[in-house]
């Protein structure tokens, strides 16, 4: 009887071994693996596989986030990275400086014009190389409760001064409601707001980095929000909490600055408010401008580990510029495409279901997206973000000290790069 138990154990081990050993075939077909997190990516890739029997792509679904960057870098070190990865724009400098992403400039020479210069600059990192192809972008917009704005007689602010006035007016007519919140948990939003003001947090100049988080643009944005928070004209609690969901759902917060993907988030966070929101361009620093920042967005990068660089780059080009692929990405994955000609009509002719009351939703977005400021990311975005969370978290709680918080963020980011051995100035 004992022998049998042992035999079963051995058989299981054997079965497991054989299951594990799936190899690559050598019938001339190029097989590519692609780590991606966008929902529905399998369906989009299936279109490619059908049309390209000799280049077969397998999607391996991943969880998005900083952990995936670490995992990709580790896999690249071991020589087991996939051929393609989906990478957020702010992760590209990390991946490029670890030599994970390949330079595909020769393979994608003619696609630059399909994207806005601001987006393209994020995949070249300001160099001549091309480290990835832009997939989606998240231009910031001003989302507001159209019904409540009307009820309280508020005008949609077009400048930040008007935004502050709107917050004041709301405070007078409905003291129990807030216009929005300053969330110290979402550095991505603050980064987007700073980009709009003209910030370039990381730049490269002849073999050295410059960190400029605590610059004029950053100070302008943080001083603006400090005043609103100090006067209790906006809330100081973080976003994406159950309390925040409830505040949105019950109309205690009547506006939200977010990326173009906000409708999806609002649908889960505030399900009772369907059809009552509207999107408007982000308030401007100078009247009449059309500038915005970005929050979110990702790209498709080819890794240095691949044995099939031309084929991988060909697939990446198809995925991010072909009308059929982009339509599928919009429909299956709910992305907002980075390619400019895919931003109107087609799959984006209709507004998102949650915003059915605003038929011109995507036309508004397309206009706003034209003015998306270039983002400048560096190799330690995660450090800067966690410094933001710590420093601004306590500043927002005290409703004071935003200026010092920005200085702390600058110092932490600079020191970290210095310690890692980068040539860096500030």
């Amino acid at each position, binding site marked *: 009887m004992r022998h049998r138990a042992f035999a079963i154990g051995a058989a299981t081990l054997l079965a497991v071994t054989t299951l594990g050993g799936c190899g690559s075939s050598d019938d001339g077909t190029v097989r590519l693996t692609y780590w991606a997190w966008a929902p529905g990516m399998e369906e989009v890739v299936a279109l490619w596989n059908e049309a390209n029997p000799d280049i077969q792509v397998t999607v391996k679904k991943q*969880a998005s986030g900083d952990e995936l960057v670490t995992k990709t870098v580790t896999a690249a070190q071991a020589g087991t990275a996939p051929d393609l990865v989906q990478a957020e724009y702010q992760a590209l400098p990390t991946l490029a400086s670890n030599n994970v992403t390949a330079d595909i400039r020769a393979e994608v020479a003619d696609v630059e014009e399909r994207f806005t210069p601001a987006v393209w600059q994020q995949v070249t990192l300001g160099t001549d190389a091309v480290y990835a192809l832009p997939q989606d972008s998240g231009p910031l917009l001003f989302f507001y409760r159209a019904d409540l704005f009307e009820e309280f007689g508020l005008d949609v602010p077009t400048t930040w001064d008007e935004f502050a006035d709107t917050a004041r007016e709301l405070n007078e007519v409905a003291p129990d409601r807030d216009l929005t919140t300053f969330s110290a948990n979402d550095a991505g939003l603050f980064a987007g707001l700073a980009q709009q003001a003209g910030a370039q947090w990381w730049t490269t100049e002849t073999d050295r980095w410059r960190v400029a988080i605590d610059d004029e643009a950053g100070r302008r944005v943080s001083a603006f929000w400090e005043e609103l928070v100090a006067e209790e004209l906006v809330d100081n609690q973080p976003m994406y909490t159950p309390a925040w969901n409830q505040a949105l759902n019950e109309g205690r917060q009547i506006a939200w600055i977010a990326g173009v993907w906000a409708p999806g988030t609002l649908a889960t966070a505030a399900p009772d408010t369907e059809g009552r929101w509207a999107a408007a361009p982000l308030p401007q620093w100078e009247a009449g401008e059309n500038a915005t920042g970005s929050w*979110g967005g990702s790209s498709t990068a080819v890794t240095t580990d691949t044995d099939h660089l031309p084929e991988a780059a060909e697939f990446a080009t198809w995925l991010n510029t072909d009308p059929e692929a982009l339509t599928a990405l919009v429909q299956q*994955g*709910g992305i907002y495409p980075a390619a400019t000609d895919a931003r109107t009509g087609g799959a984006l002719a209709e507004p998102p279901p949650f915003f059915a009351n605003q038929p011109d939703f995507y036309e508004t977005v397309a206009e706003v997206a034209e003015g998306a400021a270039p983002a400048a990311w560096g190799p330690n975005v995660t450090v800067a973000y966690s410094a933001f969370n710590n420093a601004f978290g306590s500043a927002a709680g005290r409703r004071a000290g935003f200026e010092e918080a920005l200085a702390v963020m600058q110092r932490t980011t600079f020191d970290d790069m210095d310690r890692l051995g980068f040539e860096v100035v500030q």
Partner: protein
Amino acid sequence: MSATTSAAPTPRATNAPGRPRRVALLPTAALLLGALYCLLPVAWVVVAATKSGDELFSTFTFAPGGGLLENVSDLHGYRDGIYWKWMANSALYAGVGALLSCAVSALAGYALAIYRFPGRESVFNVLLAGVLMPPVILAVPQYLLLAEADLTDSRLAVLLPVLLSPYGIYLARIYAAASVPADVVEAARMDGSGEWRIFRSIAVPMMRPGLVTIFLFQFVAIWNNFLLPYIMLSDDEKFPLTLGLFTLLNQGSNTPALYTLVITGALLAVLPLIALFLVIQRFWSLDLLSGAVKS
């Protein structure tokens, strides 16, 4: 609680055995608080799993909703029922991994407890150092090693590192030393039994409660393991539950997290563990009732 009222102190009964002792209020209160602290999140998961997406954040936290069946069927329908595949994977990793690791621990622990050989103490000390080493920091080196063997992204990559459990071997050694008397081993040798047979027919039955403990420890540890499979696996057909639920939470900024699916999935993921504990419990109480040697 009734003990407090019945405890009328009479001098005669002060040291009488079996007399109900006075309940110490402070420790009891502290323990009750601790129990509440541990059980509240569990209660939250149970209640939240019954809420539909609309109710999740909008109704009172502990008010049950009416969407449990819908949630389960949504989870079942998500990407052609991949959730069940993840659960089967978890069962495979935890079941096979715990069984093999238990076998390795039993062999190693028995050998360390019974045999005298040079280097025995050093081996044991190295293992003790291994107990202090959190498995988390080993995940990346193990990945790099398995990449050399071309085994990453395979089920074996998750199973191999869990085979050797320093804590399991440590427990097995302690248990073997306590429950397998040297006299019994000696007697078996006198009767002409081989070493393998002594281990298999005499030592293993004696060590059984300890081995069950090791099995359960390992099973729960592997079932809940996150970092090792996260680093090792990239194909979500091979993901265990922990990883699968994590991908549901992080789908990129333009897709909201699938909270109701994750919460329902987390609740269902606990059920096999509870079932396992209920089934295996009886092996614990079945301690060695019959002593082999008289002391």
